[in-house]
């Protein structure tokens, strides 16, 4: 047993943790920055640059666990650059809440009928389909919070 423990391979743990934490970080930061930033091009470029630097680090890292973690974090950062545009599209479709304090979102609210300040996903599942009106009523108590 003690001998086996000495031969544990940390590569998978490093890869798995980098993937989970990288996805989580990107998920939270992209939504938060897209919500507040007047432009999404600069943050997207920053994430793309960070992704390229992390990939360079992965190529220079001698140990497999470190190379794995950096390679995965680099790819997730690069994907996050694309996610800024996908998140903006979700806001246009009403699949993510618009921020009325953000001038870019104010334009989206004016130009896209489906856009809303409500987070339609911020509730418990009901186990049945809901109409658009019911969906808004289910989360309408949080409209001030979303604003």
């Amino acid at each position, binding site marked *: 047993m003690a001998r*086996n423990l000495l*031969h*544990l*391979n*940390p*590569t*998978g*743990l*490093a*890869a*798995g*943790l980098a*993937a*989970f934490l990288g*996805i*989580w970080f990107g*998920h*939270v930061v992209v939504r938060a920055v897209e919500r507040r930033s007047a432009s999404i091009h600069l943050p997207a470029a920053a994430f793309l640059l960070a992704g390229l630097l992390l*990939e360079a680090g*992965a*190529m*220079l*890292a*001698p140990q*497999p666990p*470190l*190379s*794995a*973690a*950096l*390679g*995965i974090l*680099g*790819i*997730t950062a690069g*994907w996050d650059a694309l996610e800024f545009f996908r998140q903006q599209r979700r806001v246009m479709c009403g*699949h993510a809440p618009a921020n009325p304090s953000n001038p870019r979102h104010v334009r989206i609210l004016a130009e896209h009928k489906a856009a809303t300040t409500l987070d*339609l*996903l911020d*509730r*418990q*599942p*009901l*186990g*049945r*389909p*809901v109409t*658009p009106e019911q*969906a808004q009523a289910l989360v309408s108590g949080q409209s001030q919070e979303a604003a």
Partner: protein
Amino acid sequence: MNLFGPALGIVTLLVIGLGFVWVVRVERSLGYLWWPYFLAGGILLLGGSLFIASDWGSALAGLVGASLAWGATELKVQAIRAELGWYPFQGKKRRPPFAERIARWKAPNL
């Protein structure tokens, strides 16, 4: 130059892409209450990756484990997306063991 990390990054994109697909399909046919089983499976796979000697084998097990764990946190929101009509809704689900107990737990949503 070590290409292991960048190559694994490309594989990660594929694993995440498959994650989108299985979350939609699992929620549609089984429902979001299966989340503890997928979370436990992901954690077990992540822990099991420590015992795989091959770096590629260990990394793939860790990646798939992470994808299962992340997908478990997405199932509840996916259920709401289906209720909203953003994805096809299927009312008849195969309930998991201990469904009543799991329904009382707060499903993770990161």
